[in-house]
């Protein structure tokens, strides 16, 4: 207890000194199937003012590391090694002693700000509690500090908002409040566990700015845990890549991004779709799945997925060592060593020397899918048949109040007049932040019910007018792949039954069905001998492949994809995107692809429509829109997306949007984007008036490019991507 207070009382001595030092950290959870070795030997030093990112896919042990350092791990976990804060061992402290450190010397920002704040207390109460817990002070002073903290993290009108409850805050504001709590006691170490994963990109950009500002103000060291390589490139000084519980590569952010040595890192970087890649650059396909950390076989855990794997990779696990290309120098220190571990760049790979010497890139190591153009895509767009036409589509939901006498108190303008067209062999990407109406649009297309206003035409027919057999036949040509492959597959059905279901519904014979299912499983890259398995026995990427196989079963013409890869890990995501690309070329499919990830859309789509608050603000050829965005919202959206390239990230100018998405029940008059528009601020008063009164139509700004802004030509060209 006393040591805790002294160490917490002692301030860090200066920037660059080691604050937190972790040596040979092992975390093991006993389980029925065997020991789950979640972390297997992690070393790092964290210096004051430095940001270290821990990158890895789900199950790589990155979150467990943060919990173990904070002492928040479950009681069943067995932890060995050493964690020192200001040179004092904290791993063996009991919970009471750790509580003196948590929130004061070390604090944490969690992923889900909704569940991290207690809903029954005001945000102010919770910040004041965090302050008073470690620094006894009069309530009035603590409240004053709370207001200052909220102001620091950019919450507008903090005097009033401090008395708000968490549910009155939006997701981004909650995460700001979490950051305010984390920095309330001027901590030495802030651990941010996927702090922006649950947020939209424009909000993510705001929150990352706040996190940077918080770090500047407190001079704290930050451990950033994330799977998003773009965020890492913009935030981190140093990076630790984890795989199957072990660090497989450590180094400065530039070393990792520009000179990766471990094939896993190389594959990971190669499998991220790039926003700044003009032409279709094929993505690296890292085959297979991350191993389970129960009963790991000997050898390198990545060997089963590594195309370079040699004899020794299967027998001995490589140590984390520095590679110069010719000679490996062991730098990993033992658990007792005081020496700084990896000052430079180290990788745990037997073959890293070869990688360095030969300068291997992901295209040299991993199979890359060549993009094939279907016969349909050779035909000029104007000559192809439209498969989906949406004109003037509106979907309004009544807002009701009262339990007995229900009356209408308003309208939610979920989709408010949009026009879209998908032609044969084409992919239309529909992007926007959550709440912009993109999912509602999808459901309108799929529900076959008359919309509030406007028409939907699928393959030349109006689905709402069809009945019986004709309706069912149209269903055959229009299939969907859902976002969450776990939720979209009935857990009680075997893979065979799942894929065969649409076939049965459309009257295929037993023999034909069996043959078709086998064919489909092979098409999407699943082992046809797994027909008896339940979806729960597959990994996320495989489940999504089952979903795709099911959607393809009836040979549809139009596939609607609702965020099909957003629930998947990066290396798995690339495989699914490549598969979709290949299927489209082979089967002549058309896609309506809904996503919030603009980089994925750039990679896969031919044309793109950007939605904001139920309307389309920019629409056109994907390269034109991305290279020359004309609507201020598209510009902000593109500039908010982190690019996995540290150099670009450092030099990029971000357009930060103010505030949050207005409620679709009460959209702003005139131009819906005017409340957050950075362009409007630069306009003269008289022009601003026009934004308030007159809703802008989609105006042509290129050959196949329209933008809904009165002042499209105000700034000719904004280079937001690179």
């Amino acid at each position, binding site marked *: 207890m006393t040591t805790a207070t002294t160490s917490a009382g002692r301030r860090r001595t200066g920037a660059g000194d080691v604050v937190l030092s972790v040596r040979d950290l092992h975390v093991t959870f006993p389980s029925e199937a065997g020991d789950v070795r979640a972390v297997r030997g992690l070393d790092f030093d964290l210096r004051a003012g430095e940001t270290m990112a821990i990158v890895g896919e789900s199950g790589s042990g990155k979150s467990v590391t943060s919990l173990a350092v904070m002492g928040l791990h479950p009681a069943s976990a067995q932890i060995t090694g050493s964690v020192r804060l200001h040179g004092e061992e904290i791993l063996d402290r009991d919970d009471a002693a750790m509580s003196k450190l948590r929130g004061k010397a070390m604090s944490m920002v969690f992923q889900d700000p909704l569940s991290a704040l207690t809903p029954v207390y005001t945000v102010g109460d919770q910040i004041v509690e965090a302050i008073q817990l470690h620094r006894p002070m009069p309530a009035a002073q603590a409240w004053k500090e709370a207001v200052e903290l909220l102001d620091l993290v950019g919450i507008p009108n903090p005097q009033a908002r401090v008395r708000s409850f968490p549910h009155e805050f939006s997701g981004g504001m909650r995460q700001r409040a979490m950051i305010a709590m984390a920095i309330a006691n001027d901590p030495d170490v802030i651990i941010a566990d996927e702090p922006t994963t649950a947020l939209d990109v424009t909000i993510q950009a705001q929150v990352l700015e706040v996190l940077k500002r918080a770090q500047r103000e407190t001079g704290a060291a930050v451990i950033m845990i994330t799977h998003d390589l773009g965020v890492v490139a913009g935030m981190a000084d140093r990076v630790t890549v984890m795989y199957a519980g072990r660090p497989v590569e450590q180094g400065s952010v530039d070393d990792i991004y520009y000179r990766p040595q471990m094939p896993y890192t190389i594959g990971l970087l190669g499998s991220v779709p790039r926003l700044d890649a003009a032409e279709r650059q094929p993505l690296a396909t890292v085959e297979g799945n991350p191993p*389970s950390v129960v009963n790991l076989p000997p050898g390198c855990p990545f060997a089963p997925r590594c195309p370079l794997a040699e004899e020794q990779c299967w027998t001995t696990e490589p140590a984390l060592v520095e590679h110069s290309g010719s000679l490996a120098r062991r730098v990993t220190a033992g658990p007792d060593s005081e020496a700084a571990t990896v000052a430079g760049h180290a990788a745990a790979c037997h073959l890293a020397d070869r990688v360095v010497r030969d300068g291997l890139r992901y295209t040299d190591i991993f199979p890359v899918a060549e993009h094939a153009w279907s016969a349909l895509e050779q035909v000029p767009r104007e000559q192809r048949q439209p498969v989906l036409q949406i004109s003037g589509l509106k979907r309004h939901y009544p807002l009701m109040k009262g339990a007995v006498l229900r009356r209408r108190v308003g309208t939610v303008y979920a989709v408010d007049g949009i026009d879209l067209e998908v032609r044969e062999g084409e992919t239309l990407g529909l992007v926007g932040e959550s709440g912009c109406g993109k999912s509602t649009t999808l459901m309108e297309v799929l529900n076959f019910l008359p919309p509030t206003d406007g028409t939907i035409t699928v393959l030349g027919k109006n689905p709402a007018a069809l009945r019986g057999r004709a309706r069912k036949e149209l269903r055959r040509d229009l299939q969907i792949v859902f976002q969450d492959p776990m939720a979209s597959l009935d*857990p009680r059905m075997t893979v065979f039954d799942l894929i065969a279901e649409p076939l049965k519904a459309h009257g295929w014979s037993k023999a034909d069905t069996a043959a078709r299912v086998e064919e489909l499983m092979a098409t999407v890259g699943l082992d046809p*001998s797994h027909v*008896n398995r339940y979806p729960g026995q*597959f990994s996320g990427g495989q489940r999504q492949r089952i979903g795709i196989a*099911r959607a393809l079963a009836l040979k549809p013409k139009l596939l609607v994809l609702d965020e099909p890869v957003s629930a998947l890990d990066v290396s798995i995501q690339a495989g699914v995107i490549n598969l979709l690309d290949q299927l489209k070329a082979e089967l002549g499919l058309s896609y309506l692809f809904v996503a919030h990830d603009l980089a994925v859309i750039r990679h896969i789509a031919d044309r793109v429509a950007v939605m904001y608050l139920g309307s389309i603000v920019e629409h056109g050829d994907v390269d034109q829109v991305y290279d020359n965005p004309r609507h201020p919202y598209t510009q902000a959206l593109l500039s908010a997306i982190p690019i996995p390239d540290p150099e670009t990230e450092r030099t990029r100018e971000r357009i930060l949007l103010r505030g949050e998405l207005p409620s679709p029940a009460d959209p702003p008059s005139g131009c819906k984007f005017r409340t957050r528009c950075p362009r409007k601020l630069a306009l003269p008063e008289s022009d601003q008036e026009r934004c308030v009164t007159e809703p802008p139509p989609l105006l042509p700004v290129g050959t196949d490019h329209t933008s809904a802004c009165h002042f499209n030509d105000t700034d000719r060209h904004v280079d937001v991507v690179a």
Partner: protein
Amino acid sequence: MSTNNPLELIDEMPTPTHGANAPTSKRLSRRQLVVRRFLRNKTAVLGLLVLVVMALLAVFGPLISAWDYRDVDRTAFLSEPDSRHPFGTTQSGVDMFALTLRGLSKSLVIGLAVAVISTGIAAVVGAFAAYFGGWFERIALWVIDLLLVVPSFLIIAIMMSADRSGTNQSGFDRFVSAAPQWIVLVVLLALFGWMLAARVVRSLSLSVKEREYVQAARFMGIPAPVIIVRHILPNISSLLIIDATLNVAAAILAETSLSFFGFGVKPPDTSLGVLLGVGARQATTFPWLFVPPAVTVVLLILAVNAVGDGLRDALDPTSGSGGRV
């Protein structure tokens, strides 16, 4: 992707353990899989065996018993178990073994039939109400609420004992007087026993209905009844099975209390409930009147529960007990 990591996935079908080197790629229908998983659960198989033996005893019992349940042995009133009467006799000289067999056959039929029918009604009404919503749901809920506030015991008692010999018989009257009494009892017990379960089924179905796989099925063009049977009901089967197993016990008890007041099974016919009711009063002095029906009821309910648990695990792919051994 085709190379699965075998470590990550629980191997559902370990080849060597089943059949003569059956290849894993052999496709099994859902029913075959469920049967196979059920058979792996030893307790459930034992329970099923007990049920089968009981059913056989109920049907063929009179053949192995020396006495009929209507016979009166005037030489042995209230005698202890001996070689002539293995379970002893009652006060009126009826063989206890014959009575237990007769009671078992009645209670087995009433218990199982009521459970299956009332859970079936609950499943269908609850799931359809949830899936279709709107007016169908409202009417279903009205009927449920109405039946819940009706004193079911009184109604069954009145219906069972009403005089239906009048000249202007309704269809229901004709059914009641024509059908055997136990069928009427089963129908009435089932009719008043499904409402609470239906409400629970409805609320569970409401959440399952919103799942993406139900939407996916709709977008595939699968008709609503098929979606309900194939997707919604299996995913709430745990509740249905628990409900059904509880209903077996509840139906036997309900029949007991009805019989106690003379509305259920009427003498000389008997049921386990009737036997228990009579025997319980003399359990300490003449235990042979109480022990045989009590043991039978306990065995019956344990067996039903074991089968229910086994079925639940067999239907639920996430349960480890169904698959791993």
